[in-house]
Protein backbone atom coordinates (compact mmCIF):
# COMPACT_ATOMS: atom_id res chain seq x y z
CA UNK A 1 0.00 0.00 0.00
CA UNK A 2 1.38 3.40 -0.95
CA UNK A 3 1.47 5.90 1.91
CA UNK A 4 -1.27 7.97 0.26
CA UNK A 5 -3.70 5.04 -0.04
CA UNK A 6 -4.47 4.77 3.65
CA UNK A 7 -5.48 8.44 3.61
CA UNK A 8 -7.91 7.69 0.78
CA UNK A 9 -9.44 4.58 2.33
CA UNK A 10 -13.24 5.17 2.23
CA UNK A 11 -13.81 3.13 5.41
CA UNK A 12 -11.44 5.27 7.48
CA UNK A 13 -12.94 8.42 5.99
CA UNK A 14 -16.44 7.18 6.87
CA UNK A 15 -15.41 6.49 10.47
CA UNK A 16 -13.82 9.94 10.76
CA UNK A 17 -17.05 11.46 9.41
CA UNK A 18 -19.00 9.54 12.10
CA UNK A 19 -16.64 10.84 14.74
CA UNK A 20 -17.03 14.37 13.40
CA UNK A 21 -20.84 14.07 13.55
CA UNK A 22 -20.58 12.85 17.15
CA UNK A 23 -18.29 15.77 18.04
CA UNK A 24 -20.31 18.68 16.65
CA UNK A 25 -23.06 19.59 19.13
CA UNK A 26 -23.77 23.19 18.15
CA UNK A 27 -23.54 25.31 15.01
CA UNK A 28 -19.87 25.76 14.07
CA UNK A 29 -18.33 27.79 11.31
CA UNK A 30 -14.82 26.98 10.10
CA UNK A 31 -12.83 28.66 7.37
CA UNK A 32 -10.38 26.90 5.04
CA UNK A 33 -7.65 29.17 3.76
CA UNK A 34 -6.39 26.99 0.94
CA UNK A 35 -7.74 26.51 -2.56
CA UNK A 36 -6.80 22.83 -2.53
CA UNK A 37 -8.90 22.26 0.60
CA UNK A 38 -11.79 24.06 -1.12
CA UNK A 39 -11.61 21.75 -4.11
CA UNK A 40 -10.87 18.52 -2.25
CA UNK A 41 -13.79 18.98 0.16
CA UNK A 42 -15.96 18.67 -2.95
CA UNK A 43 -13.85 16.33 -5.06
CA UNK A 44 -13.74 13.60 -2.43
CA UNK A 45 -17.40 14.04 -1.54
CA UNK A 46 -16.53 15.27 1.97
CA UNK A 47 -18.95 18.19 1.97
CA UNK A 48 -21.85 15.75 1.72
CA UNK A 49 -20.51 13.98 4.84
CA UNK A 50 -20.33 17.07 7.07
CA UNK A 51 -22.84 17.29 9.91
CA UNK A 52 -25.56 19.87 9.20
CA UNK A 53 -24.45 22.11 12.09
CA UNK A 54 -20.98 22.47 10.58
CA UNK A 55 -20.42 25.13 7.95
CA UNK A 56 -17.07 25.32 6.14
CA UNK A 57 -16.49 28.59 4.29
CA UNK A 58 -13.67 29.52 1.92
CA UNK A 59 -11.18 32.21 2.77
CA UNK A 60 -8.49 34.05 0.81
CA UNK A 61 -6.52 30.91 -0.09
CA UNK A 62 -6.80 30.79 -3.86
CA UNK A 63 -3.83 32.78 -5.24
CA UNK A 64 -5.46 33.65 -8.56
CA UNK A 65 -8.74 34.67 -6.88
CA UNK A 66 -7.11 37.14 -4.50
CA UNK A 67 -5.03 38.79 -7.24
CA UNK A 68 -6.58 42.23 -7.69
CA UNK A 69 -7.83 43.48 -11.08
CA UNK A 70 -5.21 46.26 -10.91
CA UNK A 71 -2.51 43.56 -10.89
CA UNK A 72 -4.08 41.82 -13.89
CA UNK A 73 -3.87 45.18 -15.68
CA UNK A 74 -0.17 45.29 -14.79
CA UNK A 75 0.24 41.83 -16.38
CA UNK A 76 -1.49 43.10 -19.52
CA UNK A 77 0.78 46.16 -19.63
CA UNK A 78 3.85 43.90 -19.31
CA UNK A 79 2.69 41.39 -21.91
CA UNK A 80 1.94 44.20 -24.37
CA UNK A 81 5.62 45.16 -24.70
CA UNK A 82 6.74 43.81 -28.07
CA UNK A 83 9.99 42.32 -26.74
CA UNK A 84 8.27 40.49 -23.86
CA UNK A 85 7.42 36.84 -23.63
CA UNK A 86 4.99 36.63 -20.71
CA UNK A 87 5.27 33.35 -18.80
CA UNK A 88 2.56 32.44 -16.33
CA UNK A 89 0.72 29.62 -14.62
CA UNK A 90 -2.29 28.75 -16.76
CA UNK A 91 -5.14 30.03 -14.59
CA UNK A 92 -4.04 33.64 -14.83
CA UNK A 93 -4.47 33.72 -18.60
CA UNK A 94 -8.27 33.83 -18.41
CA UNK A 95 -8.65 36.26 -15.48
CA UNK A 96 -10.16 39.56 -16.60
CA UNK A 97 -8.51 42.87 -15.79
CA UNK A 98 -10.38 46.09 -16.45
CA UNK A 99 -10.12 45.58 -20.21
CA UNK A 100 -9.80 41.94 -21.03
CA UNK A 101 -7.56 38.99 -20.31
CA UNK A 102 -4.07 37.81 -21.19
CA UNK A 103 -5.78 35.37 -23.56
CA UNK A 104 -7.43 38.29 -25.38
CA UNK A 105 -4.06 39.98 -25.67
CA UNK A 106 -2.48 36.77 -26.97
CA UNK A 107 -5.16 36.60 -29.65
CA UNK A 108 -3.91 40.01 -30.76
CA UNK A 109 -0.37 38.80 -31.15
CA UNK A 110 1.19 39.16 -27.69
CA UNK A 111 3.47 36.30 -26.60
CA UNK A 112 1.89 34.64 -23.57
CA UNK A 113 3.24 31.22 -22.60
CA UNK A 114 1.85 28.90 -19.95
CA UNK A 115 4.50 27.33 -17.73
CA UNK A 116 4.08 24.86 -14.88
CA UNK A 117 7.11 25.95 -12.88
CA UNK A 118 9.23 29.05 -12.38
CA UNK A 119 12.14 26.83 -13.47
CA UNK A 120 10.45 26.43 -16.86
CA UNK A 121 10.35 30.22 -17.23
CA UNK A 122 14.13 30.35 -16.69
CA UNK A 123 14.57 27.61 -19.29
CA UNK A 124 12.42 29.65 -21.68
CA UNK A 125 14.68 32.68 -21.21
CA UNK A 126 17.75 30.57 -21.96
CA UNK A 127 16.10 29.18 -25.09
CA UNK A 128 14.98 32.61 -26.35
CA UNK A 129 17.88 35.05 -25.76
CA UNK A 130 16.27 37.64 -28.05
CA UNK A 131 13.19 38.07 -25.85
CA UNK A 132 12.65 39.34 -22.33
CA UNK A 133 10.86 36.60 -20.38
CA UNK A 134 8.61 38.06 -17.67
CA UNK A 135 7.39 35.44 -15.18
CA UNK A 136 4.25 36.29 -13.21
CA UNK A 137 5.10 35.25 -9.65
CA UNK A 138 1.87 34.33 -7.94
CA UNK A 139 1.15 32.26 -4.84
CA UNK A 140 1.75 32.17 -1.10
CA UNK A 141 4.64 30.98 1.09
CA UNK A 142 4.55 27.67 -0.80
CA UNK A 143 5.35 29.21 -4.17
CA UNK A 144 7.46 32.28 -3.32
CA UNK A 145 10.63 30.21 -2.58
CA UNK A 146 10.30 28.56 -6.00
CA UNK A 147 10.30 31.95 -7.71
CA UNK A 148 13.20 32.96 -5.45
CA UNK A 149 15.12 29.87 -6.59
CA UNK A 150 14.45 30.82 -10.22
CA UNK A 151 15.80 34.34 -9.62
CA UNK A 152 18.89 33.01 -7.84
CA UNK A 153 19.52 30.60 -10.70
CA UNK A 154 19.05 33.38 -13.28
CA UNK A 155 21.56 35.50 -11.33
CA UNK A 156 24.07 32.64 -11.21
CA UNK A 157 23.68 32.17 -14.97
CA UNK A 158 23.99 35.97 -15.50
CA UNK A 159 20.75 35.71 -17.49
CA UNK A 160 19.81 39.23 -18.51
CA UNK A 161 16.52 38.44 -20.30
CA UNK A 162 14.59 37.03 -17.33
CA UNK A 163 12.62 38.95 -14.74
CA UNK A 164 9.69 38.46 -12.37
CA UNK A 165 6.48 40.40 -11.93
CA UNK A 166 5.89 39.44 -8.31
CA UNK A 167 2.39 39.21 -6.89
CA UNK A 168 3.50 36.76 -4.22
CA UNK A 169 1.58 37.07 -1.00
CA UNK A 170 2.04 36.23 2.67
CA UNK A 171 -0.58 34.39 4.66
CA UNK A 172 -0.23 35.90 8.18
CA UNK A 173 -1.18 39.51 7.25
CA UNK A 174 -4.33 38.41 5.46
CA UNK A 175 -5.37 36.15 8.33
CA UNK A 176 -4.93 39.20 10.57
CA UNK A 177 -7.18 41.13 8.22
CA UNK A 178 -9.86 38.42 8.18
CA UNK A 179 -9.85 38.00 11.95
CA UNK A 180 -9.23 41.61 12.87
CA UNK A 181 -12.46 42.96 11.42
CA UNK A 182 -15.25 41.20 13.25
CA UNK A 183 -15.62 37.63 12.07
CA UNK A 184 -18.05 34.82 12.86
CA UNK A 185 -15.59 31.94 12.80
CA UNK A 186 -15.09 29.13 15.30
CA UNK A 187 -11.81 27.89 13.87
CA UNK A 188 -9.45 27.71 10.93
CA UNK A 189 -8.49 24.72 8.81
CA UNK A 190 -4.91 25.81 8.13
CA UNK A 191 -3.20 25.16 4.78
CA UNK A 192 -0.84 22.17 4.95
CA UNK A 193 1.60 23.19 2.29
CA UNK A 194 1.93 26.80 3.40
CA UNK A 195 2.69 25.27 6.81
CA UNK A 196 5.20 22.83 5.26
CA UNK A 197 7.23 25.94 4.40
CA UNK A 198 6.24 28.41 7.14
CA UNK A 199 5.89 25.89 9.99
CA UNK A 200 3.16 25.30 12.53
CA UNK A 201 4.42 28.26 14.50
CA UNK A 202 3.40 30.67 11.70
CA UNK A 203 -0.22 29.93 12.65
CA UNK A 204 0.28 30.14 16.43
CA UNK A 205 -1.10 33.74 16.58
CA UNK A 206 -4.53 32.30 15.74
CA UNK A 207 -4.70 30.98 19.27
CA UNK A 208 -2.37 33.44 21.00
CA UNK A 209 -3.81 36.64 19.51
CA UNK A 210 -7.32 35.73 18.41
CA UNK A 211 -8.20 32.97 20.86
CA UNK A 212 -9.28 30.65 18.08
CA UNK A 213 -8.42 27.02 17.42
CA UNK A 214 -6.63 26.03 14.23
CA UNK A 215 -5.58 22.68 12.82
CA UNK A 216 -3.09 22.26 9.98
CA UNK A 217 -4.56 19.83 7.48
CA UNK A 218 -3.12 17.71 4.68
CA UNK A 219 -4.98 17.18 1.44
CA UNK A 220 -6.06 13.56 1.23
CA UNK A 221 -9.67 12.92 2.29
CA UNK A 222 -8.68 11.37 5.63
CA UNK A 223 -6.26 14.26 6.27
CA UNK A 224 -9.05 16.79 5.83
CA UNK A 225 -11.52 14.82 7.96
CA UNK A 226 -8.90 14.27 10.66
CA UNK A 227 -8.23 18.01 10.81
CA UNK A 228 -11.96 18.81 10.99
CA UNK A 229 -12.45 16.29 13.82
CA UNK A 230 -9.61 17.82 15.84
CA UNK A 231 -10.87 21.32 15.07
CA UNK A 232 -14.39 20.41 16.19
CA UNK A 233 -13.00 18.90 19.39
CA UNK A 234 -10.99 22.04 20.15
CA UNK A 235 -13.88 24.36 19.27
CA UNK A 236 -16.27 22.25 21.36
CA UNK A 237 -14.06 22.71 24.42
CA UNK A 238 -13.47 26.38 23.67
CA UNK A 239 -9.75 25.61 23.48
CA UNK A 240 -7.49 28.12 21.73
CA UNK A 241 -4.66 26.03 20.29
CA UNK A 242 -3.05 25.44 16.93
CA UNK A 243 -2.46 21.75 16.25
CA UNK A 244 -0.49 20.03 13.55
CA UNK A 245 -2.75 17.49 11.86
CA UNK A 246 -0.24 16.88 9.07
CA UNK A 247 3.02 16.09 10.92
CA UNK A 248 4.42 13.87 8.16
CA UNK A 249 4.96 17.01 6.04
CA UNK A 250 4.85 19.90 8.51
CA UNK A 251 7.49 20.64 11.14
CA UNK A 252 7.20 23.17 13.96
CA UNK A 253 9.54 25.57 12.16
CA UNK A 254 8.63 24.51 8.63
CA UNK A 255 11.34 24.49 5.99
CA UNK A 256 14.03 26.97 7.08
CA UNK A 257 16.00 26.60 3.82
CA UNK A 258 12.98 27.70 1.80
CA UNK A 259 12.23 30.56 4.20
CA UNK A 260 15.85 31.74 3.95
CA UNK A 261 15.70 31.70 0.16
CA UNK A 262 12.50 33.75 0.12
CA UNK A 263 14.05 36.23 2.58
CA UNK A 264 17.23 36.50 0.57
CA UNK A 265 15.41 37.44 -2.64
CA UNK A 266 12.22 39.16 -1.50
CA UNK A 267 11.22 41.85 0.94
CA UNK A 268 7.64 42.39 2.25
CA UNK A 269 5.67 45.22 0.65
CA UNK A 270 2.11 46.51 0.74
CA UNK A 271 -0.06 44.67 -1.76
CA UNK A 272 -3.59 44.97 -3.13
CA UNK A 273 -5.98 42.03 -2.62
CA UNK A 274 -9.25 41.34 -4.28
CA UNK A 275 -11.90 41.73 -1.60
CA UNK A 276 -9.62 43.38 0.98
CA UNK A 277 -7.96 46.41 -0.60
CA UNK A 278 -4.33 47.15 0.24
CA UNK A 279 -2.94 45.03 3.05
CA UNK A 280 0.29 46.36 4.61
CA UNK A 281 3.30 44.09 4.34
CA UNK A 282 1.32 41.29 2.70
CA UNK A 283 3.19 41.18 -0.60
CA UNK A 284 6.73 40.21 -1.59
CA UNK A 285 8.90 42.16 -4.06
CA UNK A 286 12.53 41.55 -5.12
CA UNK A 287 15.19 43.20 -2.96
CA UNK A 288 17.49 45.91 -4.35
CA UNK A 289 20.22 43.31 -4.90
CA UNK A 290 17.94 41.54 -7.39
CA UNK A 291 16.58 44.74 -9.02
CA UNK A 292 17.44 43.61 -12.53
CA UNK A 293 15.13 40.62 -12.07
CA UNK A 294 12.23 42.87 -11.07
CA UNK A 295 9.87 43.49 -14.01
CA UNK A 296 8.51 46.61 -12.30
CA UNK A 297 11.95 48.21 -12.51
CA UNK A 298 12.70 47.09 -16.03
CA UNK A 299 9.47 47.87 -17.86
CA UNK A 300 7.01 50.71 -18.15
CA UNK A 301 3.87 49.19 -16.65
CA UNK A 302 1.47 52.12 -16.81
CA UNK A 303 -2.04 50.81 -17.38
CA UNK A 304 -3.16 50.51 -20.96
CA UNK A 305 -6.35 49.52 -22.64
CA UNK A 306 -6.84 47.15 -25.52
CA UNK A 307 -7.40 49.18 -28.67
CA UNK A 308 -8.00 48.10 -32.23
CA UNK A 309 -4.29 48.04 -32.96
CA UNK A 310 -3.04 46.69 -29.66
CA UNK A 311 -2.60 48.34 -26.28
CA UNK A 312 -3.23 52.07 -25.97
CA UNK A 313 -2.70 54.40 -23.00
CA UNK A 314 -5.65 54.32 -20.61
CA UNK A 315 -6.82 56.08 -17.50
CA UNK A 316 -5.84 54.30 -14.30
CA UNK A 317 -9.43 53.54 -13.28
CA UNK A 318 -9.77 49.82 -12.69
CA UNK A 319 -13.11 48.12 -12.69
CA UNK A 320 -13.89 44.66 -11.38
CA UNK A 321 -16.23 42.57 -13.56
CA UNK A 322 -19.72 44.05 -13.03
CA UNK A 323 -21.74 42.17 -10.44
CA UNK A 324 -18.95 39.69 -9.63
CA UNK A 325 -18.80 38.99 -5.88
CA UNK A 326 -15.39 37.28 -5.86
CA UNK A 327 -14.16 39.82 -3.34
CA UNK A 328 -16.89 38.72 -0.94
CA UNK A 329 -16.34 35.04 -1.74
CA UNK A 330 -12.61 35.11 -0.90
CA UNK A 331 -13.35 36.99 2.32
CA UNK A 332 -15.95 34.40 3.39
CA UNK A 333 -18.65 37.10 3.29
CA UNK A 334 -20.79 35.16 0.83
CA UNK A 335 -21.05 31.76 -0.80
CA UNK A 336 -20.73 31.35 -4.58
CA UNK A 337 -24.48 30.63 -5.09
CA UNK A 338 -25.22 33.98 -3.40
CA UNK A 339 -23.77 35.71 -6.48
CA UNK A 340 -26.41 36.60 -9.05
CA UNK A 341 -24.16 35.51 -11.94
CA UNK A 342 -23.37 32.06 -10.50
CA UNK A 343 -24.39 29.34 -12.95
CA UNK A 344 -26.17 31.87 -15.16
CA UNK A 345 -23.84 34.38 -16.78
CA UNK A 346 -20.86 32.87 -14.99
CA UNK A 347 -19.93 29.23 -15.67
CA UNK A 348 -16.69 27.30 -15.98
CA UNK A 349 -16.77 27.62 -19.78
CA UNK A 350 -17.59 31.36 -19.66
CA UNK A 351 -16.20 32.60 -16.33
CA UNK A 352 -16.91 36.18 -15.30
CA UNK A 353 -14.57 36.41 -12.31
CA UNK A 354 -11.34 34.78 -11.08
CA UNK A 355 -13.14 32.61 -8.49
CA UNK A 356 -14.70 30.77 -11.46
CA UNK A 357 -11.57 30.91 -13.65
CA UNK A 358 -9.19 29.28 -11.19
CA UNK A 359 -9.45 25.53 -10.72
CA UNK A 360 -8.95 26.26 -7.01
CA UNK A 361 -11.57 28.97 -6.89
CA UNK A 362 -14.57 28.50 -4.67
CA UNK A 363 -17.04 29.35 -7.46
CA UNK A 364 -15.38 26.83 -9.80
CA UNK A 365 -15.56 24.10 -7.13
CA UNK A 366 -19.22 24.82 -6.35
CA UNK A 367 -20.10 24.94 -10.03
CA UNK A 368 -18.24 21.78 -10.94
CA UNK A 369 -19.36 19.63 -8.05
CA UNK A 370 -22.80 21.06 -7.35
CA UNK A 371 -24.24 22.01 -4.01
CA UNK A 372 -23.39 18.80 -2.14
CA UNK A 373 -24.06 18.96 1.53
CA UNK A 374 -25.82 22.29 1.46
Amino acid at each position, binding site marked *: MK*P*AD*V*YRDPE*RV*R*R*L*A*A*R*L*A*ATVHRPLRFMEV*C*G*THTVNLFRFGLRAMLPPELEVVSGPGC*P*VCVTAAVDIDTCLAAAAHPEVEFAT*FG*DLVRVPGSCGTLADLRARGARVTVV*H*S*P*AAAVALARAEPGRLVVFAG*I*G*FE*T*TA*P*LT*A*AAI*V*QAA*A*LALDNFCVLSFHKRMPPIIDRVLGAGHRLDGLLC*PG*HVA*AIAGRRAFAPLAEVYGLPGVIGG*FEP*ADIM*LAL*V*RLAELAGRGAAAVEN*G*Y*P*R*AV*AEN*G*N*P*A*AQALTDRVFIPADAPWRGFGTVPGSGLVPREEFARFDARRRLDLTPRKMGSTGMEPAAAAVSEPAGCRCGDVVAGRCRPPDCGHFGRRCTSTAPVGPCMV*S*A*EGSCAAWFRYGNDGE
Partner: protein
Amino acid sequence: MCLAIPMRVIEISGTSGDAFDPPAAAVEADGIRQNVRLDIVDRMPAPGNYVIVHAGFALTTLDEEQARANLALLEELAAGGDETR
Protein backbone atom coordinates in the same frame (compact mmCIF):
# COMPACT_ATOMS: atom_id res chain seq x y z
CA MET B 1 -1.70 25.62 -8.76
CA CYS B 2 -1.11 24.84 -5.12
CA LEU B 3 -1.79 21.16 -5.82
CA ALA B 4 1.20 19.75 -4.03
CA ILE B 5 1.38 15.97 -4.19
CA PRO B 6 3.68 13.31 -2.69
CA MET B 7 5.92 11.54 -5.21
CA ARG B 8 8.50 8.77 -4.80
CA VAL B 9 12.13 9.59 -5.54
CA ILE B 10 13.77 7.32 -8.12
CA GLU B 11 17.09 9.00 -8.80
CA ILE B 12 19.04 12.11 -7.78
CA SER B 13 21.05 14.26 -10.20
CA GLY B 14 22.80 17.63 -10.42
CA THR B 15 25.01 17.46 -7.33
CA SER B 16 27.95 19.27 -9.00
CA GLY B 17 27.02 22.74 -7.69
CA ASP B 18 26.90 24.08 -11.27
CA ALA B 19 24.02 26.54 -11.96
CA PHE B 20 23.53 24.89 -15.35
CA ASP B 21 22.96 21.56 -13.62
CA PRO B 22 20.96 22.31 -10.45
CA PRO B 23 20.10 19.59 -7.92
CA ALA B 24 17.13 17.59 -9.16
CA ALA B 25 15.37 14.27 -8.76
CA ALA B 26 13.42 11.95 -10.98
CA VAL B 27 10.17 11.25 -9.12
CA GLU B 28 7.12 9.12 -9.77
CA ALA B 29 3.49 8.91 -8.65
CA ASP B 30 0.59 6.96 -10.14
CA GLY B 31 2.76 5.97 -13.11
CA ILE B 32 3.62 9.60 -13.91
CA ARG B 33 7.32 10.34 -13.92
CA GLN B 34 8.79 13.83 -13.82
CA ASN B 35 11.91 15.73 -12.90
CA VAL B 36 11.77 18.09 -9.95
CA ARG B 37 14.26 20.57 -8.59
CA LEU B 38 15.69 20.15 -5.12
CA ASP B 39 16.79 23.78 -4.53
CA ILE B 40 14.46 24.42 -1.63
CA VAL B 41 13.87 20.96 -0.13
CA ASP B 42 14.37 20.89 3.65
CA ARG B 43 16.25 17.59 3.73
CA MET B 44 17.94 15.91 0.75
CA PRO B 45 15.85 12.85 -0.11
CA ALA B 46 17.29 9.44 -0.96
CA PRO B 47 15.84 7.14 -3.61
CA GLY B 48 12.69 5.53 -2.16
CA ASN B 49 11.80 8.58 -0.02
CA TYR B 50 8.64 10.53 -0.71
CA VAL B 51 8.77 14.26 -1.43
CA ILE B 52 5.93 16.75 -1.77
CA VAL B 53 6.10 18.31 -5.20
CA HIS B 54 4.75 21.73 -6.12
CA ALA B 55 5.21 23.52 -9.45
CA GLY B 56 8.32 21.58 -10.43
CA PHE B 57 10.09 21.73 -7.06
CA ALA B 58 10.23 19.35 -4.08
CA LEU B 59 8.97 21.30 -1.05
CA THR B 60 9.77 18.82 1.66
CA THR B 61 10.90 15.23 2.23
CA LEU B 62 8.28 13.28 4.16
CA ASP B 63 9.54 12.29 7.58
CA GLU B 64 9.12 8.56 8.23
CA GLU B 65 8.92 8.81 11.99
CA GLN B 66 6.33 11.57 11.73
CA ALA B 67 4.52 9.54 9.06
CA ARG B 68 4.01 6.80 11.68
CA ALA B 69 2.81 9.36 14.23
CA ASN B 70 0.45 10.81 11.64
CA LEU B 71 -0.96 7.36 10.88
CA ALA B 72 -1.38 6.61 14.57
CA LEU B 73 -3.39 9.82 14.99
CA LEU B 74 -5.54 8.84 12.00
CA GLU B 75 -6.20 5.34 13.35
CA GLU B 76 -7.00 6.67 16.83
CA LEU B 77 -9.55 9.18 15.56
CA ALA B 78 -11.05 6.72 13.04
CA ALA B 79 -11.40 4.09 15.79
CA GLY B 80 -13.34 6.64 17.84
CA GLY B 81 -15.70 6.93 14.89
CA ASP B 82 -16.58 3.25 15.17
CA GLU B 83 -17.64 3.53 18.81
CA THR B 84 -20.19 6.16 17.89
CA ARG B 85 -22.05 3.88 15.48
